[in-house]
C-alpha cells in the first residue's frame, strides 16, 4: 500500500514537472485563463451603452425636444445624426451608423396636449435581435418616465401605475456578475479536459507510454498519476479566476470558500474522468485535442453560459443533465452570488459525482484492455 502511494507520488511529481517545466506550456496554462477572464469580464455583456440613434423630428416642438433630450442625457444613448428625410434615416440603419431610428410625427405635441395617444416610431436594426430588443426596452423605460413627468406637469389624468422592479442577487443586473462565476467552471473544464487528454496522448505519440507500462505501475496507478496533476492545475486555475473576480471586478462573494472548493473538487473529478476517457480512445495529440474539443463545444454552448437553459427545446434540456458544466455553472453561481449552503446544493452535486463515478472506471477499464 505504502509502495503504491510512493509510486503515485513519484508519477504525480514527474507529471507536474512535464507540464510546468516548459516555460511555454507554463505560460499557456496560467496566463490565458486570467487574460480571458479580464477580457470577457469587460466584453461579455448584454448591457448596452452609447447606443447610436438617428432622429427624424418632424414636430420640432418643445415636447419632442424634451423627449429627445432625455435620450441624449442618458448614458445608454448617443445621438449619431439628425435627418430630414425618412430615406436618410433608413439608410443610416442599413449601413450601421445607427442602431435605432426615431421618428416623431408633426402632430406629436398637439396630440399630447389633446390627450390622445401620441405615437413615436422606433426602427431598430434587428441583425442582432437581442441587442435591438434591449435597446428598445431602454427607449420604453425613458418614454414611460417622460409620460409620468408630462402628466404630473400638465395635470392630466390620474397618476399612472408605477411598476417597481427589483432584481435579486444582482441588483444592477450586470451581465458580468453572471459571466465571471460561470467562467470559473468553463475555463477550468476546458483546460483540465485538454490537459488530461493531451498528457496521455503525448506519451502515446512519443512512445514513452510503453516505457511506463514496463514499470511496476498498475494501470489504476498510472491513471491516478495522470488525474491528480490535472486536478491540481484545475484548482489553481479556478483560484486565479476567483481572484480576478474579487480583486479586479469586485463581485461580492456571498458564500463559503470551503463549500466552493469541495464542489469544485467533485467537478474536477468529473472533468478529469472525461479527459481520461478521451485519452483512452485516441492515438495522437491531434485526435486528443479535436475530440476533447468536440465534447467541450456542446458542453459550453448548452450550459446556460451564453443562453438560458430554460429557452432550449426539451430534448436538449435533457442533454444538459449529463453536462458537467451545467452543474458547475449553477453551483458556482449559487455559492458565489446567493451564498447557498452545501445541503441545498446536493441535488446539483450528486450528478457530478455520478459523472465521475461512471467515466473513471470506464477509462480505467479501457486502459487495462489497451495495455494487455
Amino acid at each position: 500500500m505504502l509502495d503504491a502511494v510512493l509510486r503515485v507520488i513519484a508519477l504525480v511529481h514527474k507529471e507536474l514537472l512535464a507540464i510546468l517545466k516548459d516555460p511555454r506550456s507554463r505560460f499557456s496554462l496560467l496566463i490565458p485563463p486570467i487574460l480571458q477572464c479580464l477580457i470577457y469580464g469587460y466584453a461579455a455583456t448584454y448591457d448596452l451603452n452609447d447606443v447610436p440613434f438617428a432622429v427624424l423630428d418632424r414636430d420640432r416642438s418643445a415636447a419632442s425636444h424634451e423627449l429627445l433630450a432625455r435620450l441624449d442625457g442618458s448614458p445608454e444613448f448617443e445621438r449619431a445624426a439628425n435627418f430630414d428625410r425618412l430615406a436618410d434615416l433608413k439608410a443610416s440603419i442599413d449601413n450601421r451608423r445607427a442602431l435605432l431610428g426615431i421618428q416623431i410625427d408633426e402632430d406629436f405635441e398637439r396630440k399630447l396636449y389633446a390627450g390622445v395617444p401620441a405615437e413615436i416610431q422606433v426602427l431598430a436594426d434587428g441583425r442582432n435581435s437581442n441587442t435591438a430588443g434591449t435597446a428598445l426596452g431602454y427607449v420604453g423605460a425613458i418614454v414611460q418616465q417622460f409620460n409620468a413627468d408630462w402628466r404630473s406637469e400638465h395635470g392630466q389624468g390620474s397618476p399612472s401605475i408605477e411598476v417597481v422592479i427589483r432584481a435579486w442577487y444582482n441588483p444592477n443586473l450586470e451581465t458580468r456578475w453572471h459571466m465571471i462565476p460561470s467562467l470559473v467552471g468553463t475555463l477550468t473544464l476546458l483546460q483540465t479536459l485538454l490537459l488530461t487528454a493531451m498528457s496521455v496522448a503525448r506519451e502515446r505519440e512519443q512512445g514513452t507510454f510503453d516505457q511506463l507500462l514496463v514499470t511496476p505501475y498498475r494501470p489504476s496507478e498510472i491513471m491516478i498519476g495522470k488525474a491528480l496533476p490535472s486536478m491540481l492545475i484545475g484548482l489553481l486555475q479556478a483560484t486565479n479566476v476567483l481572484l480576478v473576480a474579487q480583486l479586479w471586478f469586485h463581485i461580492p462573494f456571498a458564500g463559503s470558500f470551503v463549500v466552493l472548493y469541495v464542489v469544485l473538487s467533485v467537478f474536477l473529478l468529473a472533468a478529469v474522468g472525461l479527459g481520461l476517457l478521451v485519452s483512452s480512445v485516441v492515438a495522437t495529440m491531434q485526435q486528443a485535442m479535436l475530440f476533447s474539443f468536440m465534447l467541450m463545444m456542446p458542453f459550453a454552448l448548452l450550459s446556460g453560459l451564453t443562453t438560458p437553459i430554460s429557452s432550449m427545446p426539451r430534448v436538449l434540456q435533457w442533454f444538459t443533465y449529463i453536462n458537467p458544466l451545467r452543474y458547475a455553472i449553477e453551483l458556482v453561481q449559487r455559492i458565489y452570488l446567493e451564498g447557498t449552503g452545501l445541503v441545498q446544493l446536493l441535488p446539483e452535486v450528486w450528478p457530478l459525482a455520478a459523472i465521475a463515478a461512471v467515466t473513471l472506471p470506464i477509462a480505467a477499464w479501457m486502459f487495462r484492455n489497451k495495455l494487455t
Partner: protein
Amino acid sequence: MSAEIMELSPAAAKRLRIASLVRKETRQIIRDPSSIAIGVVLPLMLILVFGYGLSLDVKDVPVAVVVEEASPEAMELLASFRLSPYFLATSVSSMAQAERLMLAREVDGVVRIRQDFSRNVYGGQPEVQVLVHGTDANHARIVENYALAAVGQWAARQAAEGKTMPAGAATVDERLWFNEANESRWFLVPGLVVLIMTLIGAMLTSLVMAREWEHGTLEALFVTPVRPGEILLGKTIPYFVLGMMGLVLCVLAARFLFDVPLRGSLAALTAASMLYLLIALAIGLLISSTFRSQFVASQITMLVTFLPALMLSGFLFDLRSMPLAVRLLTYLLPARYYVTLLQTIFLAGDVWSVLLPNAAVLTVMAAGLLLMTRRVMRKTLD
C-alpha cells in the same frame, strides 16, 4: 521520378510538386478520423446545437403572482400575466410563499399586487412590485420588459373600457428591421458559420505544421526540391476545400432547416467566406510554425481564434458597449469583420457601404498574414 521532373519545365515541375503535396495532405486528412470529425461531424453537431439549442428568446418564464386582494382589478392584472405568451403565471396568496418558490428557483420572478391596489387605482398611486431573479442579467432584463408590457396592456384595456386611466401619453411603435419575427436564431445561425470556419481553418491547421516539426518530417521535406511557398500551398489547399464544404453545409442548413433568409447574394457570401477562410488558415499555419509544439499551438489557437470569434466578434455581445481598450482589440480580429459581413449578407442584403470596407480590411489581413507565414517558414528553413 526525379528524372521525369528534370525534364519538365520549371512551372510544370512546380505544379507537380504542389499536386503531390496536396495529395499527401489529403490522404492524411482522410485517414485520420479526427480530421473527418472536425470537417463534417463538428459542423453538423454545431448546426443542430445552434439551430435548435441556442435561443435568447424568452418564452414561458415561470413567475409567481402574489394577489393580496381579490378585487376585479387585481384579477384582471393576473389574467394579463396569464395570457401573455412570455409568462407561465401561478398565483400564490402570500409573499412568503412566493419567496420560497424564488429561492428554490422554481420561478424566475415574482409579481406582487398589494392589498390597496384597487383603491389606489382610483385616486392614489397604484403600485405593482416586480422581483426578478437577477443571476442571468440578460434574461432578467427581458423578463422585466415583458412584465412592464403586461402591466401596460392591462392599463390599455382598462382605458379602453372607459375606466379612469391616463390617456394622451406618448406611445412607442416599435419595428424590428431585418428580423421582423424577433428570432434570435436568425442572428445565431450566421454567427455559427463564423465559428465553423474558424474551427476548420485555424484549429486543424495549427496542429499540422507543429506535428511535422515534432516528428521531424518537415526536415525530411526540406531536402526535397520543394520550396517553402509550395509547402504552404500544399497545406492550405486541402483544408481550404474542407472549410468550403463546411460552409456549404451551414448555408444549406441555415436556408432550408432553419428558414434563415439569405437576402444578399450567394456570390458575396462565398467571396467573404473564402477571404475569411484564408485568414483562418494562415493564422493556424503561422501559430504552428512559430511554436512547433502541438500542445502549445492548440492552446494558443484556442486563445487567439476560437474564443475571440465567440465572444469578441459582435456575434453574441454588442461591440459598442465594450470598454474602449477591448473595443480597440476587436479591430484586430478578423472575425469581427466577418460577422458584420455575414449578418448583413444574410439579413439585410448586399449593402455595399457595409460590405466593401469590411471586405477590404479582410483582404489586407489575408495578404499580411500569408506573407508573414511565408517569412516564418523561410526563416526556419535557413
